[in-house]
Every structure is written in structure tokens, then in C-alpha cells.
């Protein structure tokens, strides 16, 4: 019991735990839609492609949220441009995934170039792997606001998203515009990535969106329980990861990401076992 309480005495850990819990709620709920719509790669691309924005903000001393927002808008536009491309455009010739890979590599390289050039101060690791222990009260407010917005939007859009995800063609007949649902999901995804990237970093943020939902999918059969399970798994794993980082003295962001992936593996193993029995 004492082991559980000891980290809570420090302000840093209190804030970090709260941040991880909030991000877990968002990641778990939104992640279910991301995974079912097969947007994992898209989420990854947004996270990596926004690096130049983050680096520029860091260099200019501007708030990371601002740079990240600009970076994510640029990344989203670049991806949209290249992935569509019209007939005989890049997306058509290369396949959507390859076209996105090209854009992401270029943007990510640009971010690295800006961050590693000799005049710039060190600190790219914080952008890449997150700085959850550096969570400020302002960060917590942003995360809380994000959680409210995302949960409210998902609650309102639930049946539309369900209808579109289940049967896109019929969804139109039911009056659930698939294009609008797609757009809403992408905006929510961008928001979630933007806020979560501060804590978990560019490279690891996708873990909180994908792992809990993928784990829940293996354990549940209906959407409602899946979302609930994903949120529970995300928060539990996130908190466990932080405790692990505290006691084992390892990087916090990586520990949280590792715990999330471990939760996914456990859930898959449990589902396999259940199927055999």
C-alpha cells in the first residue's frame, strides 16, 4: 500500500499521473474508432509529420501546442494532397500508404534537420519520446479540455460513426453522411495527437490510441463495452507504466508506451486462451 502512495507525494508525479489518466480516457475512447476505421497508420503519420512544427516552436520559445497545431495542419494538408492526387496522381500511382510514407519521411527528416543542426539546443529527445514528468498545470488544463471535447463529440456522433463504420453504403441511405463522419473523426484524431504528443512524444503517442482499443477489441463483442474496456485498459496501463518508471528508474514516456503494448499482448493472449477453452 505504501508503495502505491509514495509516488503520489510528489507534485511531479501527481500531475503526470493525472495527465496519463486523462490521455488514457481520450486514447481509449477515440482509439476504438481509429482502430476500427483502420486509421492507425494515419494517426502514426500525423504524429510523425508534425515534428517540424514542434521543433520550430521549441526553437522560437513558443508554446508547443501552437507549433504542434501548425505542424499537424501542414502534415494533414500534405498527406491529403499527396494521397488524393486525382487520377494518375501520386496516390493513385503509388498507393495511398506509400504516398503517405513519402510525405511523412520528408517532414520527419525536416524536423530532424532543424533539431539537430549545430546551432540549435539539444532537446529533440523530449519531443520524440515525450516529457510526461514535465507536465504543467497548463498542460493538464489542455488535456482536460481535450477530454471533454472528444468525449462529448464521440457521445453525440456515436450512432452515426457506428452506422458509417458498419456499412458505408447504407449509411448514406440512413442519412448519416459518411464524408462528414470521416472528417469529424480526423479532426478529433488530430486534436488528440496534438495534446498527447507533449506527454508521450512524437514516436510513442500512437500507443495510447491503438493499444487499448486493439486490446479491447480482442475482449469484447459490442461497441459500448469495447469503448469502456479500452478506457479502463488505457488508464490502468498508463498508470502502471508511470509507477514502473518511478520504481525502476526508467524513461517515463517509454515506460507508459511499453505498458500499453504489454496490455495489448496480454489481452490478445487472454482472448486466445478463452477461445481454446
Amino acid at each position, binding site marked *: 500500500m505504501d508503495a502505491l502512495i509514495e509516488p503520489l507525494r510528489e507534485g511531479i508525479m501527481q500531475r503526470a499521473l493525472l495527465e496519463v489518466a486523462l490521455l488514457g480516457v481520450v486514447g481509449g475512447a477515440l482509439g476504438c474508432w481509429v482502430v476500427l476505421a*483502420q486509421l492507425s*497508420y494515419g494517426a502514426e503519420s500525423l504524429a510523425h509529420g508534425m515534428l517540424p512544427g514542434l521543433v520550430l516552436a521549441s526553437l522560437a520559445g513558443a508554446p508547443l501546442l501552437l507549433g504542434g497545431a501548425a505542424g499537424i495542419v501542414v502534415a494533414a494538408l500534405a498527406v491529403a494532397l499527396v494521397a488524393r492526387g486525382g487520377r494518375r496522381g501520386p496516390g493513385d500511382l503509388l498507393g495511398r500508404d506509400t504516398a503517405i*510514407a*513519402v510525405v511523412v519521411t520528408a517532414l520527419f527528416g525536416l524536423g*530532424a534537420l532543424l533539431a539537430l543542426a549545430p546551432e540549435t539546443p539539444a532537446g529533440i529527445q523530449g519531443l520524440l*519520446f515525450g516529457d510526461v514528468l514535465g507536465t504543467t498545470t497548463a498542460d493538464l488544463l489542455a488535456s482536460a479540455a481535450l477530454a471533454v471535447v472528444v468525449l462529448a463529440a464521440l457521445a453525440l456522433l456515436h450512432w452515426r460513426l457506428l452506422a458509417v463504420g458498419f456499412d458505408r453504403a447504407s449509411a448514406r441511405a440512413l442519412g448519416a453522411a459518411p464524408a462528414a463522419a470521416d472528417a469529424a473523426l480526423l479532426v478529433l484524431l488530430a486534436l488528440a495527437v496534438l495534446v498527447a504528443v507533449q506527454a508521450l512524444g512524437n514516436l510513442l503517442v500512437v500507443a495510447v490510441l491503438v493499444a487499448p482499443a*486493439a486490446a479491447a477489441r480482442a475482449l469484447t463483442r459490442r461497441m459500448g463495452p469495447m469503448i469502456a474496456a479500452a478506457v479502463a485498459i488505457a488508464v490502468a496501463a498508463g498508470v502502471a507504466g508511470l509507477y514502473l518508471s518511478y520504481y525502476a528508474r*526508467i524513461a517515463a*514516456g517509454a515506460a507508459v508506451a511499453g505498458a500499453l*503494448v504489454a496490455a495489448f499482448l496480454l489481452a490478445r493472449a487472454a482472448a486466445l486462451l478463452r477461445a481454446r477453452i
Partner: protein
Amino acid sequence: MLEALDLPFMQRALAEVLLLAVAAGALGTWIVLRGLAFYAHGVAAAAFPGLVLADGLGFPALLGALGVALLFALGVGRLAARGRDGHDALTALALVAALAAGVVLASDVFASGVAVESLLFGSLLAVGPGEVRLAALVALLAVAAGWLLGPRWLAVGFDAGAARALGVRAGAADLALLALVALAAVAAVSAVGALLASALLVVPAATTRLLTDRVRPWQLATGALAAVEGVAGLWLAFELDAPPGATIAVLAGGVFALAALARASGRLRPLGGAA
């Protein structure tokens, strides 16, 4: 620049990019045709914890890199090549796990002073003879395998069902392709880093795809473009004291953007046949 070539490390760096360009030319086409871009990126990233492990436990770096990369390749690669549902979530998580493991091993477990950044973004100017030899081996294997197995890779790429009907043993040929891409990705890691391997292996091939759609010209153009971008990136990085891997990536991306724009504006006519 020419004086710089007197320096042995520059000679090695030059040899490295040129050899990797050959491999990129031979394999890039297949990576694009078979949709293996994400897989190649993942394998390269998986090499990162392998390298840290090797450095920390004291066994040859190549072994570590290849070991973890092959684990990744086996686990995720077959799913990627078949394009099965939900594989993108699995690949994304494998990628995250590899990167998280790598950074924990490097910073906390071994605290070995292994520069995480040089592993992630490459240290082209510090490649040793061993790495150049690996690049030469990969280039050779890629060209040879491409010549031998190219038709099978092409058949399966377009229609797996028809390939089976024609008696093409897609399984073994597929495995060879995935293994080769993994090897090339590991070789590229020392030059451009675990996170930017696509800059050499994918982006040039994608760029030249916008110009032609016949396999042979495509491969040759890719090799040439990768060589030009690699050398130019190396030179720029040396002159401007910038990280070479990132420089090559930005250069490659810029060329791609130009090619896409030129194509979109209709000014570029595709070579070698109908668009």
C-alpha cells in the same frame, strides 16, 4: 568537396551511399509495388533496440540489429505482405514497442553513452569498413535476387490468386523479398538512421514512379536518383555541418514534391510508354 575525398571517412561515406543507392534501385521498386513501405520503416526502427542491445551486451552490432529486425520481419512482415485486416495496428504497436525498448535500454539500462540520436538519424560520416562491406553485400544480393525472383514478385504483386494458379510458389519468393528488404533496411540504418531508412529505400523509388511505369527503366532511374540524392546530401551535410541522414531525407522529399508538381501540371510526360 574534392579535397574532402582525401579523407578516409568521406571515402567510406561516399561508398556507403553509392552502394545503398544500388540496393535502393534494385529493391525500391518492389517495396513500392508490394506496398512494403511501412514494413521497411518498421524493420529499420526495430534495428534500433537491437543495436543498443548489442552495444550494451558486447556482441557485434550487426547481429543485434539483424536479430531484432528479423523478429519484426517474421512477426509483422507476413501480415503486411498479405495485406490482412488490422495489420496496420499491429505494425504501429510493434514499432512503438521497438522504439520504447530501445530508448529505455540506451538511457536507463545500459546508460552506455550510445548516442540515441546517431542511431535514430544515422551517422553516415562515421561508418566503418564493416558497414560498407554490408552495404556491398546487400547491393549484390538485391541485384541478384531481383534478377532471379523478379518475375515471381511481380506475379504475386498483381494477383496472388492467379500466381498460385500459375504454380508460382509465392511463399518462398515472398519470404526472400521480405528478408532482403529487412537486410537493406538494417544496412541503411548506419547511414541515415533507424527512422529515416525510407529516405533511401522508398522516396527515390516513389519519385521515379511518377516518371515511368515500366519496371526496368524504373529500377535504373531509382538507382541513379538515389545515388544523386545520397551524394548531394552527403556533400551538403559536410559543407553545412548538418546531419547527413536528415539532409538526404529533405532533399529526397523536395525532389519528390517537384516531380509531383511537374506531373500534376502536365508538363512532365512519362517516359517509356503510356502513363
